[in-house]
């Protein structure tokens, strides 16, 4: 009989919270590595005061030795396929094989405009990128080695679940209450079964927290998600602002079958990491 697994908890680096310095990001990664966290993760956005995910994880690779380094997610089609593979493989190599590569199509046209990339056809391109990376296409010419990169795919469409089950090791959910995660997880499992994959997919979830200054966290989330219109308020309302809320959230995700839950900061203060650690204890 297989043992019932407990959810692992990772922590986000505040790469998309304005005001984060490089020094703080690296210190954050260092302390996370020394703490109880299983991974450090980053988000991806072009048009914002934010850091590039692969560059950040390369830095984090040098500052850490234990935690997994995850993109939750990176917008694949913003990058050309070979460059995406090369960046990912480089972080993987620099970290001694600790990369978890979460990919999705992204939600903002302005990021595509700024990157000079067509927004249309992004789903198809992501499919090609996954086939390229996972299928080791051109691997003899485009190194370093992609072997052992753990791949996750995010998104809520039927196509996203199919891409996940076809090419990835697991699913990266986009956040929300545990019941929303549970719904997405059952779709991911259904897709996995439909594509005839053995075993089960790794199920990753995420949430936001602000355990010191809740108002600052709320203001940041409303700004960061302004592009979603009224939905920004609902995301901000889900910010975890007490130890109790964090505990309930983790328990809810564990019950919903989550394998790894990443909690992202909404306030740039190194003390937030200590507060999260206390809340989890």
């Amino acid at each position, binding site marked *: 009989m297989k043992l019932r697994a407990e959810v692992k908890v990772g922590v986000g680096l505040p790469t998309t919270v304005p005001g984060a310095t490089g020094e703080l990001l690296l210190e954050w990664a260092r302390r996370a590595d020394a703490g109880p966290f299983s991974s450090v993760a980053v988000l991806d956005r072009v048009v914002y005061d934010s850091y590039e995910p692969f560059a950040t994880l390369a830095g984090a690779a040098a500052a850490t030795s234990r935690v997994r380094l995850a993109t939750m997610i990176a917008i694949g089609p913003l990058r050309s396929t070979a460059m995406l593979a090369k960046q990912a493989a480089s972080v993987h190599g620099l970290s001694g094989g600790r990369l978890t590569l979460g990919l999705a199509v992204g939600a903002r046209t302005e990021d595509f405009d700024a990157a000079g990339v067509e927004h249309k056809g992004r789903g198809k391109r992501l499919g090609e990128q996954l*086939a390229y990376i996972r299928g080791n296409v051109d691997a003899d010419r485009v190194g370093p080695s992609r072997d052992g990169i753990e791949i996750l795919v995010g998104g809520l469409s039927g196509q996203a679940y199919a891409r996940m089950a076809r090419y990835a090791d697991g699913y990266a959910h986009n956040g929300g209450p545990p019941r929303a995660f549970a719904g997405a997880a059952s779709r991911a499992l259904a897709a996995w079964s439909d594509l005839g994959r053995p075993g089960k997919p790794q199920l990753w979830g995420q949430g936001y927290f602000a355990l010191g200054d809740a108002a600052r966290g709320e203001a940041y989330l409303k700004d960061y998600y302004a592009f979603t219109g009224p939905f920004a308020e609902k995301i901000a309302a889900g910010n975890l602002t007490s130890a109790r809320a964090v505990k309930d959230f983790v328990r809810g995700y564990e019950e919903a079958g989550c394998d790894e839950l990443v909690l992202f900061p909404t306030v740039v203060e190194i003390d937030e990491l200590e507060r999260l650690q206390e809340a989890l204890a």
Partner: protein
Amino acid sequence: MNVEIVGAGPAGLYLAILLKKLDRGVDVRVHERNPPDATFGFGVVFSEETLGALRDADPETHLEITDTFARWDRIDIRYQGRELSSRGHSFSAIARRRLLEILQERCRELDVTLEFGVEVEELPDADLVVGADGANSLVRRFRDFGTKVRTEGSKYVWFGTDHVFDAFTFSFRETEHGLFNAHAYPYDERMSTFIVECPEEVWRSAGLDEMDEQESLTFCEQLFANELRGRELFSNRSLWLDFPKITNKTWYDGNVVLLGDAVHTAHFSIGSGTKLAMEDSIALAAALARRRWNLSAAFIDYELDRAPFVERTQEAASESAAYFGRIASYSHLEPIQFAFNLITRAGRITHATLGVRDPQFTRALDAWLGGKAVSPPPAFSPFELRGVRFANRFELHERTAAVSAEGALAPGELTAEGWGPPEKVLLRLAHAGRRGATQPRERGVDLPLAEGWPIVAPTPRPYSPFGAIPEPADEDSVLAAFVAAATLADADVLEIDMAHGYLLGSYLSPLTNDEDDRLRFPIQVLEAVRAAWAGPLAVRLSVTDWHPRGNTVDDGIAIARELVGHGCDLIHVEAGQTIHDDRPQYRRGFLTALSDRIRNEVRVPTLVGGYLTTLDEASTIVGAGRADLVLLDLPETEIERPVTTSNTVSSEVPA
């Protein structure tokens, strides 16, 4: 704080009451375009849990409402001259007019201003504006809520009758035009609601599109004279309607918030409209109380609280609407199975949950399927197919064999020559076609081998990115390979794989075959295998391509019909994967509805999987006649936790 509520239906009035109770100082006005005694429809239904919520929210009105309630716990199903009955379903209903009277009176008691006969021409100027003005909400038009309106289900019309039913009664009447059905339930000691429903083509064929109100009433009265026990139907602007399913991207904008039918509707066949509306009022009032009238915070709470529940109810309602739309295809089912199918139509009641409510009913169903007075649940019932007897509906071991090396999916795969010792199995004969020559599935699917073998398909288009370009198939040798494999086969069921874009599947779809007669070669193979194999023969079929230019479910049904005509005994229902970029719809049991359509429209036994993880799902599906055999996806059992030993207590025995 002043509040303007547009619409004096149950939701608007109830919210007015709750807001006044929350704070008597708040100025609450309700506008209604109709006079106070105008109402459409007759009775409305509540469930036990809604009643509990109403009691907690306002005991005064709860007392009055329950005083005039009709209550019952039975569902009666009148079908093909039989009447079946299931117990344990707690319902209650009230005359809509009486409900409104009670709420209006309570509003007056609490100093709510009620204004009738007032049409809203612009958004009222108030601190808080509530759109409780129904499915055709005007308030919704003044702001952008991302409203979507779609029609679902069949044509329907509401009547009242003075025949007092003593249960929720579903009746079915076959006519020369097609099948009509009626939903009837009592709502006080004198009257019942009586809704008549039929698919649009039946409605047209019967000439109802050209009848006036009185003519259509007479038509329905005569049609259901038996059910009405000779009593009358009453009209209240009873016109035939299409049901609008309404959804909104956001439930509020600034100081304007929607509730009830204005923000969501649920098909009448699950009777949840008024219940959802009044629960909205309770949730909104509670959020305003909790957030101390901070509108934007309260609206967020309200929507986050209600939306998931409403979505689930709408999903169930849509299932129910679709069920009544295809009701005619179930006319071959035995009454007990027909009744169980009806009761479980919305996906909310399963074999196990019905067994708790009404153990007699499930026992009768189990006995009918099991052939003994005391039989185990449907998943354990025996089944026979072309002389082969299955002990139950789920213990079917699938094995796949490639008919030839060319048609292998991955290197080292079992081929016809390499079969091991025979065991009791379903043996699938497959030719991977353009999905062949790929890496093993552990790391992913459709990843081409660096050094693969030539692959074949009807068109020279690769299946996936970086996939090889297929060559035309040598049909004679493919046919010969299938026949040779069938001749060698030692299995209980032999299956030909025509699904998921494998070779024969790719022949069937317009996405992957430019030929006009796309069934030509698959039928040839089927006939040849049929000639070589005397036992049960299944075909695994993608009944839809899940793509706008591909085969639809109707196409899939037509294909299945052809296959059955050429010797197929069992359709193994699958969907999609014909091409790499399809648009699948995944969820638990995502193939069940497709299997239901194939089984009951083609009238052929089906085998279905689609991420079914419990025996209860299998029993519900088999019991309801949605499939005959079920493939379960049983997750590894994980009930044991790692044992943690505290490091403060020594586990060593002291010396």
